[in-house]
């Protein structure tokens, strides 16, 4: 059967109605519904009958003020949503209370909207909540705003009064970064300029409210931004392990290499899962989907998947603009729960930069560090462990958070831009922004007391080439010679400092970087730090050479032919790799890049362990004697 009624609206737009208490929000909504023929049958008669029975004048506002307590007091307490249609689309009208007491309900309503109508009473002009709501709309990310100057009938439909309010309010809105689309003179009670042009305002050439609504644009999910896929849950309903979540921004495709913050594990998207939907290899922002991965890595709720080249920040300190709704203040020294996407982490106030009265924008001067109810603050938050986030101006969904105090969601905030370091690909560059704190004991003084320089002795080579055996013997030999020496053991590192890392190429690189950084600290403390890692990539070893104090890095290529190593195979790893039980095994299924110019090369198929150790000791002593012998 062909549709015989009105065509299906192709889209839906959510609009919030805000403004100061008694400026006529609920009345406006009632009138809008009446004048667009959107009231259900019998509703008007019902409202009239109720008013008559109660002996009170009929109020349009009672359409939205559904609670007995709201009707009794003639105020809106809670936000409500109601639907109507124009030929262009369906609208969800969100009525928000204007009383300061119910600000949390106003925010609940406004946070879900794509556009806002701000009502101002022509009689009273700009009031406290007119300003606060304007400010909060901007903070909540609502950019499409029209201002309705209501109750024009009480001002004799005066153009002068209208112009004056527009001037006053524009100045304020501009100062908080809001550019209203337009100002419209209305009288909600009489329907002036709502659905049709009013004869009372012949001077008004602008649009009606209804025309303005149809000019707003619907919000589209940010498919073009960097991918952010926060994990909501991991399901194992059958043999598949499905990571479920909603794509908050960007596009996700089968075959994508994803890095999961905060563990930084990497895997590849094997399938995109949906139920009762066509199989697809792509999913877009806004879609609640599931994915399976080619390599099983540990991922739990709270992880955020992104592409390796454009990860979120991962830090435990950031700047934010925050509004507080809780009865008890948001106070420094107290711990709260922060929820950002699907992450939850304990947090506290690090410092409050500025406290703002949102109705005047004046700075509040206060000795104690807390944010009171209905106040706004610019502050720095400190989280117990790092959170993955973005700046709100870049990616909205991962750039905002709420604060839970006890059982209650009590505040919300958006993350402000700052010089945040990225932890990942550019981690070497980012370090330039952090100043190295310099002690008063110089490296030369340490070397003089110790009798030797601090070093990073880096043993590299295939598995079973003899690195660890040499390292252990070298440590004992140097110790016996009175040297300060310590081995950074690969397994020990992975138990502690690197316990969050796996064995992907990316994680291996990060592992080597951390070992390098740690070895550097030992070397600077004057210790000879010996490491034994396969470290197959030249690039990674060169990275460590750059990290280590200048001239302290000693690269030693422990060189045994693959056949020899494979024959030794003390842990049976080569056999497993040959049997394909271990993937990406260096020398078998993954490359080993030999050093081009190592400080020392040891052919361990020809040298004994003792001989190898002796050569290293000799090399180190030579280095200590020559150019860098302490000169005091």
């Amino acid at each position, binding site marked *: 059967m062909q549709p015989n009624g009105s065509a299906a609206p192709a889209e839906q737009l959510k609009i919030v109605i805000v403004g100061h208490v008694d400026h006529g929000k609920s009345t406006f909504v009632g009138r809008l519904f009446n004048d667009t023929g959107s009231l259900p049958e019998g509703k008007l008669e019902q409202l009239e009958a109720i008013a008559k*029975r109660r002996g009170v004048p009929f109020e349009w506002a009672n359409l939205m003020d559904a*609670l*007995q307590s709201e009707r009794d007091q003639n105020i809106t*307490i809670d936000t409500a949503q109601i639907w109507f249609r124009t030929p262009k689309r369906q609208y969800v009208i969100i009525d928000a209370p204007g009383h300061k007491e119910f600000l949390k309900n106003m925010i609940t309503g406004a*946070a879900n909207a794509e556009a806002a109508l701000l009502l101002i009473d022509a009689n009273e002009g700009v009031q406290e909540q007119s300003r606060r709501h304007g400010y909060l709309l901007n903070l909540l990310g609502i950019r499409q705003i029209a201002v309705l100057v209501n109750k024009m009938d009480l001002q004799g439909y005066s153009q002068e009064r209208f112009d004056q309010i527009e001037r006053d309010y524009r100045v304020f809105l501009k100062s908080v970064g809001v550019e209203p689309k337009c100002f419209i003179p209305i009288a909600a009670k009489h329907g002036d300029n709502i659905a049709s042009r009013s004869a009372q305002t012949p001077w008004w050439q602008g649009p009606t409210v209804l025309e303005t609504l149809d000019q707003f644009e619907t919000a589209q999910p940010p498919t073009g931004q960097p991918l952010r896929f926060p994990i*909501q849950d991991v399901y194992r309903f059958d043999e598949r392990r499905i990571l479920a979540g909603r794509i908050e921004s960007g596009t996700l495709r089968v075959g994508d290499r994803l890095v999961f913050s905060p563990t930084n594990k990497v895997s590849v998207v094997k399938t995109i899962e949906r139920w009762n939907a066509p199989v697809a290899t792509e999913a877009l922002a806004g879609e609640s989907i599931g994915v399976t991965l080619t390599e099983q890595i540990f991922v739990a709720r709270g992880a955020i998947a992104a592409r390796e080249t454009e990860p979120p920040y991962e830090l435990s300190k950031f700047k934010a603009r925050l509004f507080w709704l809780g009865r008890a203040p948001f106070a420094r020294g107290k711990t709260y*729960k922060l929820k950002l996407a699907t992450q939850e982490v304990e947090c506290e106030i690090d410092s409050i930069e500025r406290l703002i009265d949102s109705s005047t924008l004046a700075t509040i001067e206060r000795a104690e560090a807390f944010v009171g109810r209905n106040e706004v603050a610019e502050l720095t938050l400190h989280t117990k462990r790092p959170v993955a986030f973005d700046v709100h101006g870049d990616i909205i969904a991962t750039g905002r958070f709420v604060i839970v105090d006890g059982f209650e969601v009590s505040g919300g905030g958006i993350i402000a831009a700052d010089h945040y370091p990225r932890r990942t690909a550019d981690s070497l560059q980012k370090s330039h922004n952090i100043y190295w704190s310099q002690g008063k004991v110089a490296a030369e003084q340490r070397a003089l007391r110790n009798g030797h320089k601090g070093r990073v002795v880096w043993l590299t080579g295939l598995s079973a080439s003899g690195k660890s055996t040499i390292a252990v013997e070298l440590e004992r030999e140097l110790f016996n010679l009175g040297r300060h020496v310590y081995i950074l053991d690969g397994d020990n590192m992975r138990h502690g400092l690197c316990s969050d890392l796996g064995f992907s190429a990316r994680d291996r690189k990060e592992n080597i970087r951390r070992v390098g950084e740690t070895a550097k600290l030992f070397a600077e403390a004057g210790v000879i730090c010996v490491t034994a890692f396969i470290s197959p990539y030249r690039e990674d070893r060169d990275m460590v050479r750059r990290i280590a104090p200048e001239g302290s890095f000693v690269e030693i290529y422990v060189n045994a032919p693959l056949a020899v190593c494979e024959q030794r195979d003390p842990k049976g790893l080569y056999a497993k790799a040959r049997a394909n039980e271990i993937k990406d095994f260096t020398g078998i299924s993954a490359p080993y890049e030999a050093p081009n110019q190592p400080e020392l090369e040891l052919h361990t198929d020809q040298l004994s362990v003792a001989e190898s150790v002796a050569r290293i000791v000799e090399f180190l002593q030579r280095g200590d004697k020559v150019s860098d012998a302490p000169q005091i």
Partner: protein
Amino acid sequence: MDYLSKLENQSIYILREAQNKFENLAMLWSIGKDSTVLLWLARKAFFGHVPFPLVHVDTTYKIDTMIAYRDRLCKEWGLQLVVGKNEEVLKSGVTFPNGKATRVECCGTLKKDALKAVLDQHHYTGVIVGVRRDEEPTRAKERYFSPRDKNMEWNVEDQPPELWDQFKTDFSPGAHIRIHPLLHWTELNVWEYIERENIPIIPLYFDNGKGERYRSLGCAPCTGSIKSRATSVREIIEELRLTKTPERAGRAQDKESEDAFEKLRRDGYM
């Protein structure tokens, strides 16, 4: 993204949040179109599975075919069903059809109290309910995650803020949370989605051959049918696009007094 998909994705997100946050979770299933769409959305969210029990509050005054339809879907979809009944009141006969209680009192004992008994017995801390904002004005004020205290009461004057899909999932012992994944859907949206997904729906919604159909399903004594010749989902959609009669016009208990329904809901009704 079309708007039906937007509604669907939001509901799936809410269902998954509920599943993750509540150890003892259940979904109310009234057998009507809304909670059946909700059930379908759960299968979407959990890839064909429904990982929590369905609670059906049986007043014994339900229309017969509803029970047959319920049992058939349970079998076909592998659902875990928990039936709640207020046996005591049913035995005493203090119900509306017996003339011993008002409609609202009857809803209070057979639905609300029966629900409370099931929740207490199974210690559910999260209850998924298919109410929608456009059904009725107090539901228009609901939250997606809406707390009820230990007496099941709804403190409507002091609801939690709800923003950016961060929901209230922390609550004091004894309280429970009602989860409303369909809150943002309209009656028309529900039917459009039934059509798009081809969801099996109970035939009571279609013309019974006498030019009448049910628009909203409840207990037989309190649920009226409407005049309609709609015999398919498509015809219902066309009808709804033109109608100006409210959906619950056929539900008599809403009309006993001005705030009858508000009082029921404050006390813990769905």
